[in-house]
């Protein structure tokens, strides 16, 4: 695949950047700088935070028009609430993308996969471009595909933990088995971890805390952009000699090629 054709397709959009940015932990006045430095084309905003009465307090005010807004359903405790939030966001002019976030565990913020599958089914039928945030579970990811998800967004580690790709083995399986794009959401704290996700073949990564808590969030956003690009190119370049099955000789099966004595 040539570099020029390497675009990410989600719904009707074709994206050049494979870095999505979250806004929930960042001061609004830093948003324009972070968005520019990250080169992102997709930004998440929690509807619960979208302050339509006060532009200065509304993160949406700080996001350039050409960026795709992906409202999330933060605060939803079940599928019905998530669907309601998605509809309110669309009615408020946030477009038809939605990141489903159904949390029934406030201590670790684990996504509720069961309710998320239900919400995805409801919203996909209503024409939303649905990107569900999930625990990396193959069975659930398959159900989400069947339910009409435009992508799946498994976590790399608990939200805000900055622990990297702790769920690496499960993410690898999702990439192998799931046809819709796989976007790692939550857990990525450092650019090197974003690069690793991309090297593994993830289609994109979403970063929030890693940028927001950096000493210089704008510079960190730029670092993530480079890491995602480098990781993607490494993936496209193909695996090196360190691949799992690579070997200089065949000590175990070489005899098959020998002439029988």
């Amino acid at each position, binding site marked *: 695949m040539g570099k020029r054709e390497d675009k990410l397709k989600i719904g009707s959009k074709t994206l050049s950047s494979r870095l999505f940015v979250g806004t929930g*932990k960042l001061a609004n006045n830093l948003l324009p700088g972070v968005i520019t430095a990250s080169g992102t084309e997709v930004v998440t905003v929690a509807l619960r935070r979208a302050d339509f*009465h006060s532009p200065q307090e509304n993160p949406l005010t700080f996001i350039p028009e050409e960026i795709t807004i992906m409202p999330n359903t933060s605060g939803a405790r079940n599928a019905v609430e998530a669907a309601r939030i998605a509809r*309110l966001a669309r009615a408020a002019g946030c477009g038809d993308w939605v990141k489903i976030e159904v949390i029934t565990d*406030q201590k670790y913020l684990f996504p509720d996969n069961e309710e998320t599958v239900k919400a995805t089914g409801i919203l996909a039928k209503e024409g939303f471009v649905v990107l569900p945030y999930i625990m990396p579970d193959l069975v659930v990811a398959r159900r989400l595909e069947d339910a009409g998800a435009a992508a799946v967004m498994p976590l790399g580690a608990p939200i805000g933990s900055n622990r990297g790709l702790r769920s690496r083995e499960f993410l690898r399986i999702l990439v192998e088995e799931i046809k819709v794009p796989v976007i790692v959401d939550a857990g990525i704290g450092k650019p090197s971890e974003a690069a690793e996700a991309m090297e593994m073949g993830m289609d994109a990564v979403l970063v929030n*805390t890693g940028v927001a*808590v950096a000493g210089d969030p704008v510079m960190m956003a730029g670092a993530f952009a480079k890491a995602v690009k480098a990781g993607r190119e490494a993936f496209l370049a193909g695996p090196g000699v360190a691949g799992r099955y690579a070997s200089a000789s065949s000590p175990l099966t070489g005899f098959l090629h020998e002439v029988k004595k």
Partner: protein
Amino acid sequence: MSFLAEMELYEKIDFSFFWRKTGVEDVRAVLDRESLKPLDFLTLLSPAATDCLEETARVARELTLCNFGKIIMLYTPLYLSNHCVNHCRYCSFSAAHRLVRKRLTVEEIKKEAEFIAGQGFQDLLVLTGESRSVTPVSYLEEALGILKEYFPALGLEIYSLSTEEYRRLVNAGADYLTVYQEVYNRETYNYLHPQGPKKDYLFRLTTPERAGAAGMRNLSIGALLGLEDWRREIFFTGLHAAYLQRKFSDIEVGVSVPRVRPNLGGFIPPVEVTDNDLVQSILALRLFLPRVGISVSTRETPWLRDHLIKLGVTRISAASVTSVGGHALPAEDEEGQFVPADGRTVEEIKEMITTCGYQPVFKDWHRLW
């Protein structure tokens, strides 16, 4: 099992002995731990831990940034009524005090709501004293019905109700409940609440559980600091919050750390709680409960509040008035519930938060129905 059973278990601890044998090295060991058990929390509340405040603050700051980001939520209180049948010794609204009693009318509530919403607030905490005759549940339902037209999030800090009554208020528009135990120590509680329905310790203690069962989205609890040994009171506050987090995993739990302020009746708090003590309390709570919101009201001075937002606090009140109404309808001759220590305007608070590199957030919930 209610929280009482768990409390009884921990009340058996010999706190003085535990803290006497706790050294700085024990505190440092706790700081290295991934997740804290109740006795680790108790270690962070020890006198020895006061020597490790800076190290603890670094961990607390990191946890707060990772879990909440550079965000400070803002709210303001609206007192609907100061009618009260309780005799809490530390409160200006006590039935024992002579003060002008007032309850806002529908028109007054609208005026106050318009004014407060005009300041930019979208999260309103609605308060009353305890009077089932003057401010019955039906009055609160009516008030919520008016206020929800102005605010996407409404909290209640009112007298303790039954689950069914809370359900009515949730249906009327209440999103969260703030209820302070005031004092976890049972003897002190009994002394400080000589008369009135609030004297029932167990009914008070189980209030958040009833509100949780009724569908409130957020529960905030706290002890009024200065009434008892603050180390123990914060310990039980933390345990209570952890209990609620376990029992209602889908509810956001918050804690407050209010200190007694000057009030009508001249009640002198029996225990001194210094700024140092308050900081130690906030840090210990943050490490024990990394995902729990921590509120600080205008009971604290501007100087202290400005510093606290970097240490674990996630929610502060602003432009607070503690008398009935008083936002749009100035009530200079009325006594408030307590005398606020931070009289800055909303704009001044916003500027302070922004200068610290944080985002002031007025809206953190969007009512769904």
